[in-house]
């Protein structure tokens, strides 16, 4: 298990290096001169030249990349050209808002999705199974930004049950502000996870070891809860791990709709202002988040499935 963990994180590091390099080159390919945008049309050539030198934009691209990696190793992602604050500080100030929103979305949608899927699989082709299927499919078909807008209109504007914008203060205030955004992000996941768990549960229930458990008189509830579900939920971890990219992109829309702080809003704002260091920093952190979540998903799988552990 220890060797597997080390290997998995080494792979994660490698993926991160490739991703950062690709990102660095891509952002340089976006049209628009960052210096003119940052300084405005009336900047003096001297000022421009000094900023170019400060951002090392006069260096060849490979050298810029090396400089960037050098900073990265020291935990330095550069300086925000507008405010002069460190990018690390800016990003990590915004990150918790996004993380708490995503975490809450995943937790509620996975819990509900697993329960729905397991229940449907335990009672296949019953009325409840059919209703669950219909509900799941319509949930899957609802994109986060649509749900976000509708939820905003219905629950915040019309009914005024929950606040419409911002992130709130204090634990309960923040939680109250999280309800609608995480509902919007999680809703399609409920359907997705329910379908996934139902399918994998039905497959597991058809396996020989379940027949063994039944042949030894173990109760159906126990068979479902501790014999089948443990295997059937394994794909859920992988799907959520890989789905982190999707979750982050839903977070961008949702943060805009609810005017919440967070890295989604940060990245949009900094792209429109060509604020390279902040864009790079944000993208780097989200990529790191994605790589980390897939690694955690794999490790959880290995932890819960001894077969996967010894296969690698």
């Amino acid at each position, binding site marked *: 298990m220890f060797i597997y963990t080390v290997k998995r994180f080494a792979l994660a590091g490698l993926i991160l290096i490739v991703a950062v390099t690709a990102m660095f080159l891509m952002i340089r390919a976006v049209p628009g001169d960052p210096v003119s945008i940052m300084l405005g049309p009336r900047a003096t050539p001297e000022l421009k030249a000094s900023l170019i030198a400060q951002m090392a934009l006069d260096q060849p691209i490979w050298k810029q990349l090396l400089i960037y990696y050098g900073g990265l190793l020291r935990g330095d992602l550069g300086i925000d050209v507008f405010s002069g604050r460190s990018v690390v500080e800016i990003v990590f100030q915004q990150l918790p808002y996004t993380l708490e929103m995503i975490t809450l979305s995943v937790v509620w949608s996975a819990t509900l999705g697993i329960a729905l899927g397991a229940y449907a699989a335990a009672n296949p082709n019953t009325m409840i199974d059919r209703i669950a299927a219909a509900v799941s499919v319509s949930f899957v078909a609802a994109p986060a930004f649509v749900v976000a807008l509708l939820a905003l209109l219905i629950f915040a504007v019309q009914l005024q049950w929950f606040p419409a914008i911002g992130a709130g203060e204090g634990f309960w205030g923040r939680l109250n502000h999280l309800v609608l955004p995480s509902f919007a992000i999680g809703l399609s996941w409920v359907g997705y996870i329910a379908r996934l768990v139902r399918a994998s549960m039905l497959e597991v229930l058809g*396996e*020989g*070891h379940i*027949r*063994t*458990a*039944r*042949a*030894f*008189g*173990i*109760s159906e509830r*126990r068979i479902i809860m*501790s*014999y089948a579900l*443990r*295997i059937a939920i394994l794909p859920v971890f992988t799907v959520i791990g890989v789905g982190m990219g999707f979750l982050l992109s839903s977070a961008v829309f949702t943060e805009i709709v609810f005017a919440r702080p967070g890295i989604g809003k940060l990245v949009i704002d900094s792209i429109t202002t060509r604020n390279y260091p902040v864009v790079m920093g944000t993208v780097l952190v989200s990529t790191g988040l994605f790589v980390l979540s897939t690694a955690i998903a794999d490790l959880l799988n290995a932890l*819960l*499935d*001894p*077969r996967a552990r*010894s296969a690698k």
Partner: protein
Amino acid sequence: MSDTLLEIDNLSVDYETERGDLKALRDISFDVQKGEIVGIVGESGCGKSTLISSILRLTAPNTRFRQGEVRFKGDDILTKTERQMRDLRGSDISIVFQDPMQTHNPVLTIGRQLVDIQHRSKATKAQKLDIAAKMLAAVGIPDPQARLKQHPHEFSGGMRQRIAIAMALMSEPDLLIADEPTTALDATLEVQIIERLKDLQSEMNCAILFISHHLGVIAELCDRVVVMYAGAVVESGDVREIFHDPKHPYTRRLIECDPGHIKTRARILPTIPGEVPDLANLPDGCIFRDRCEQATDRCHQVPALEKLKEGHFAACWLNHHEEAAT
């Protein structure tokens, strides 16, 4: 009567399918006495598995019990509630399945699974683990305490089948059903497992219903044999009787085709020509008629399972001819 453990009486079971009812079992009758080892032989698809799942009532949802009874200790199993059935499973009746690679839960330790099946016992977990270790030792697994902490994939196929036997015998059942327990194993292992099973059986004195298509194993292990063909019993009786004086042409051909019985070197192994009839669309008369070399006009009617002598039954018109001649 008190010595009869399991009685199967005119049992007929269908599977409802889109092609119509598949008559998986027709008019099956035989019994198993206490402490007796009964073998069931027959080729794939003859209804052996349906028979086992009917005894345990672990049947597919499309299964329909059309007629007959399965009596265990005098009570009809088919009318029991699911709750009553669950109390029988794994305590009075237990089973060893065919494929040891599929028998155990892959994500739980062997110890956990061996403890879980003792769910009726009031013992503490440590006591249950002790019992589990003793059972593993009894089936010949070295270092059982350590191996309880391992997962199924860390055991070989033979080891897993030993564990399955340990699980099945843990509750000291009255009836052990062994569904081709050695088919998935290689020959040397097969002998070891059979020997072990035989020893444990004489220790615990449980009855065994042993399903196999390996005649050698049946001859070695069983007291009596039931020969099944296409969902029906064609012959049943004492092991020696059946092997030395088979009364049904199918049994005869089956014995001829067993590689263990072929004395001379042949270029082509003997087979029974033809195919098992379609169970959804049964032909008239004797089910073996199309493949039988000795078929006559009488075979257009279904022969009943007749008692030929004490403990020897066969369903074939040929035996009636002999009777008429003598």
